[in-house]
């Protein structure tokens, strides 16, 4: 089995994220890191491998600027055998639709049996890339999976949906996005960190994987951010002193009632 794990470089959780008012895109000049949800996907891949399935290789795949190489180094330090970096100026400003298409193309060139990814990125929080990629690849898919068992060419997955927990059987090849409850990612060992730079890293441009330039980037995107605005200012809250507790409680209940919270 060949597992591809989609990973993304995102602003570190500690960075106060801002939108560049000119480009209306996220200002990515601050510290960056491997998307934390993707570490769960990598761990899930490692657990499939260590759980006795015949995994011939785990490949970390990303799309992003030059700096994304660091995210790939992290991914291989966490266990991936090699990595693929799709990078091309034409990809800049791709929306979900264009990104999903581009990632599907690069995955197609790898021919994986299982594609894993984190359910959301820390910056975009779109929750959708997995399902977009799956449709392009014509593979079954599930998102927000919190438990995954492999038996032969079948996965048994669990996740929380609208009405409770669903258990779903999925035939491979498949695309699965995982939630952070699925596992506790390991720390990379120092040896693995040092070895990361020596593992193969393929850099690919769009032409290498048959991506049509018109389908990606600004040109290929089907959405456009028209305007950014501040959320409506919240009204200042009402503050009361508790002088007579019975009266206070009455006021609280009235407030809750008014907002249909009881």
């Amino acid at each position, binding site marked *: 089995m060949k597992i591809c794990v989609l990973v993304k470089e995102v602003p*570190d959780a500690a960075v106060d994220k801002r939108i560049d008012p000119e480009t209306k895109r996220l200002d990515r000049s601050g*510290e960056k890191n491997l998307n934390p949800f993707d570490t769960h996907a990598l761990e899930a891949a490692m657990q499939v491998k260590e759980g006795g399935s015949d995994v011939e290789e785990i490949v970390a795949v990303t799309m992003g600027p030059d700096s994304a190489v660091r995210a790939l180094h992290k991914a291989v330090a966490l266990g991936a055998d090699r990595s693929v970096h799709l990078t091309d100026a034409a990809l800049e400003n791709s929306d979900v639709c264009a990104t999903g298409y581009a990632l599907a193309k690069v995955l197609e060139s790898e021919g994986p049996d299982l594609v894993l990814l984190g359910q959301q990125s820390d910056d975009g929080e779109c929750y959708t890339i997995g399902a977009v990629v799956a449709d392009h690849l014509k593979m079954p898919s599930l998102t927000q999976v919190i438990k995954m068992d492999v038996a032969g060419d079948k996965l048994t997955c669990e996740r929380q949906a609208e009405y409770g927990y669903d258990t779903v059987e999925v035939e491979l090849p498949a695309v699965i996005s995982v939630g952070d409850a699925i596992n506790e990612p390991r720390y990379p060992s120092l040896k693995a960190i040092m070895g990361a730079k020596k593992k193969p890293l393929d850099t690919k441009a769009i032409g290498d994987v048959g991506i049509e330039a018109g389908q990606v980037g600004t040109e290929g995107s089907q959405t456009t951010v028209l305007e950014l605005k501040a959320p409506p200012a919240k009204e200042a809250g009402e503050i009361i002193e508790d002088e007579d507790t019975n009266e206070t409680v009455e006021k609280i209940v009235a407030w809750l009632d008014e907002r249909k919270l009881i």
Partner: protein
Amino acid sequence: MGHAPSEFPPPVNPAEEFVTGITDPEEERIEVGVAIVGGGPGGLACAVRLGQLLEGEPELAERLGEVPVAVIEKGKTSGAHLLSGANMRPSAMQELFPDLDPSDWPVYQEVEKDAVYLLTKKAALPLKPMPPNFRNHGNYVTSVAKLGRFLQEKAEELGAYVLSETAADKLLVEDRIVRGIRSGDKGRGKEGQELGNFEPGSDVVAKATVLAEGTLGHLTGAALDYFDLHGSEPQRWELGVKEVWEISEPLDRVIHTMGWPLRKGARWNEFGGSFIYPMGEDKLCIGLVVGLDYTDATFSCHDALQELKTHPFIKKLLDGGKRVAWGAKTIPSGGYWSMPKRLSVPGMVMAGDCVSMVNVPELKGIHYAMHAGIYAAESIVESLKQDSVNFESYERRVRKSLIEEDLYRSRNMRQPFSKGFFVGGAIASAMTVTKGAFPGGHWSSEDDAEHEMVLGEASESYPKPDNEYIFDKLNSVFLSGNATRDDAPNHIRIQERVPREVAQTWVSMCPAQVYEIPEDQLESGADMVDVHVTASNCVQCGAITAKGGRLTLPEGGDGPLYQEV
């Protein structure tokens, strides 16, 4: 009567706990050529210089193996734990990168104007003539957090491995020869137990080890004990708290202030001052530095900086601005006499702040650390070529250099003007302006932790935070990018039941709200109180080590993520 924190020493014996032999079996060890502890200006300058030298020494490079140079950095990246003013003297950058123009350096601007003021509660009196030690003309304003990232990139280009998120927890010593370091474990729970994702540390065995740990070096402290290298005077520290502000009007000069809100007079020993530097057109930084030999247990450098910002002179500078970064760090201020007896032992050299290479009156240290790193690289290459681990030539290089010259020249500032960063040569001017009223008092030369602490009134004038202009500590810690795992073991060693004065000292001193006295004990007025430690707030400034505790290293990657302080 007060109590000195030193009466309650931390439960730790660094030489025993943090010095060990090699324990990993041979196949599990990580073999590197040179192990550099600390991705700061000193360690990374050393890595860069080693890379440059090894390009001309293929034979030695070959012998150093697959990883000729490894930099072990506990922060998420080099720079994550770096904080300084910073006005940098350009000599080391010029030496290290002769082909780079200053416009390619990670600096904001060259300093063209500077000014020093003595503050009273309402006024700002310019000190003229400008005290020579405050002259910064020709220096460059930089963010050392950015400088660290820049130098890491350069070092990596030259083949160094920068192992970030890795704590150098123990020094490996065999037959009194330093053999490398052992990295810290990861994935331990609150009680030290191994969690599901536990990853043990590794022995990183090196032919040469460079300690460039910065202020309050964890392994440096252990090494000084183990090899009996302490200098003739104890090390002393100052604590600096700094904020970066986005502003609408560019600041046209470098500013230093003395006086208010620090109290004059011997009783409280509050010596220090503030710095305000432009960072390009749209930002400035403002920081307050105070010697940790103060004696009011309620004094808080964090809150004194907030108080400083209420001064009309300062308020004007920040008007309409927004705080975008915050951090805190100690500065070794012992100077020349606090340097260790020797700067090398077989297998190891020490460079930069961790061995007191700070020119206190001139507020300079970055370029000394870098020069020392460069010397360390040169000596290591020279010795390793001869197959020797004797790096005494490093000491000779330092002693012949501007580091020795500058530090020696200012060595006696410690006697009459022993009061640290901001006072030094400026005192004469201050005395002129105030006709002798400032600074007054008497001078002591004790260890910071040996000062008796009393419950004074410093905290009474601290402004109430609005978290827009005046901030509380938790808000500040948040801005530092600190998101340390809550269930990690406590890395701060203190006695957890101490007299109120000592506990209050820690509570107030810590800029990150790590220490707390339980509310009921606070109210009851008990003489002995418990100290509750929230270690995950810690930004590793190191003040606790100066003032009666011991900071050890948490899991690699923990602590702040400074980006531009």
